[in-house]
């Protein structure tokens, strides 16, 4: 448990720094931003305590917010993803799973994991850009941002997932 927490913490820090120092600078076609830190919320295993998922996600959101000067935007959206993750993971489980099955390509199979990731990242991006742009809202630009960022984020998640064991 302790070891798992430490490992999770290191992933947490690495993802925060990567987002703050590198990924936040990337704006493809003026709309697509890679939001890789959502990956952190996707990989919680089955039966991980729900309150812990929520707290992890919330603090991840707060830190990302602090770095990009958007208080509340990422934390609200990532907490939403955190509360939905256990239920969606349940949906995509294969037939013969362990009790504490991990959420990864090797245990779920590529198709299932890809659908799970796509679902969660889409929910996140919808919420994130809705909150970020609510003051001057433009449907078309919003959709462009959501679609662009979802694709870019997934493109980043799959190679990382294939490296992870």
């Amino acid at each position, binding site marked *: 448990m302790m070891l798992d927490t430490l490992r999770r913490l290191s992933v947490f820090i690495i993802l925060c*720094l990567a987002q*703050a120092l590198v990924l936040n600078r990337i704006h493809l076609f003026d709309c697509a931003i890679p939001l890789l830190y959502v990956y952190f919320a996707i990989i919680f295993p089955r039966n991980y305590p729900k309150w812990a998922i929520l707290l992890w996600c919330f603090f991840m959101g707060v830190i990302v*917010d*602090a770095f990009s000067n958007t*208080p509340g935007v990422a*934390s609200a959206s990532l907490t939403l993803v955190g*509360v939905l993750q256990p239920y969606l993971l349940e949906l995509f489980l294969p037939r013969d799973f362990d009790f504490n099955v991990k959420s990864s390509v090797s245990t779920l199979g590529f198709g299932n994991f890809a659908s799970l990731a796509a679902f969660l990242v889409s929910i996140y991006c919808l919420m994130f850009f809705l909150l970020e742009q609510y003051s001057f809202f433009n449907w078309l630009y919003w959709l462009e941002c959501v679609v662009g960022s979802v694709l870019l984020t997934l493109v980043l998640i799959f190679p990382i997932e294939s490296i992870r064991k």
Partner: protein
Amino acid sequence: MHNLLAFLTKYYHWFIFLFLEVISGVMLFRYNSYQGSVWVSSANSVVGKVYEWESGLTQFFSLVERNEALTRRNLLLEQQVQYFQEAMADAREDSVQSLQKMMDHLGNYTFIPAKVISNSIDRPDNLITIDRGSKDGVEVDMGVACGTGIVGVVYLTGDHYSVVIPLLNTQSRISCAIRKKGYYGYVTWPGGSSVIAYVDDIPRHAKFKVGEWVETSGYSSIFPRGVLIGKIIDIDDSADGLSYRLKINLSTDFSRLRDVCVITEKDFAERLRLQEAALDSLALQRNRN
């Protein structure tokens, strides 16, 4: 009672979820109503420190280029000084006296040099973080400028870091004037290109040409008079047809911003107090009526 407890233990994570969302909502809305969010922004000292390390590193790699730019600029300035000295000598004016006048004018202002440690130019609400805060004398609403022109106005201050609203923010409105003509207007930026901004409220009877310079007016206490903003590249009518709307090319290159100065006026606090007193008395009068 037992059922209630069972219900709570089964679904307690939803309550945590609601609680965290409420906190996020509070952060989201508090920030828009000005101040109070130094903790969740890059004026927070931990975030500031990380950005400072990063900018120190990236700065190192651009040193050669910056040196060249500085040398070029220095040469240009030296030539200008030479030219003006000659011009002054020609005019046979008492040069000591005019220098004195210039120093007196700028003497009201002090400059706090600062480094930009985080910057963005591609969003509608860009913000800049600098590495000077309230402990260094930076206060909210002070002006920020760099060697090539205006940058923005301080919005939040932490102990050692501050967040600046640059001209490249849809919410910034900085009063300006056309150089030597003195017609007043204000600069806004509607988003999009980081080198184009617009000047509104220039009166219809004003006479000026494309290619003339727009500078700060000095009416607000934030900037001294004559800080460069940009060059007029197009003249258009405003939406209501009552004034001109000028398209200007900004003199500051926000994408390469590194060294800036926070401009503080010596009697800044006094002016602010006076302004607040005036607003208060106006409000009082309104209430009476």
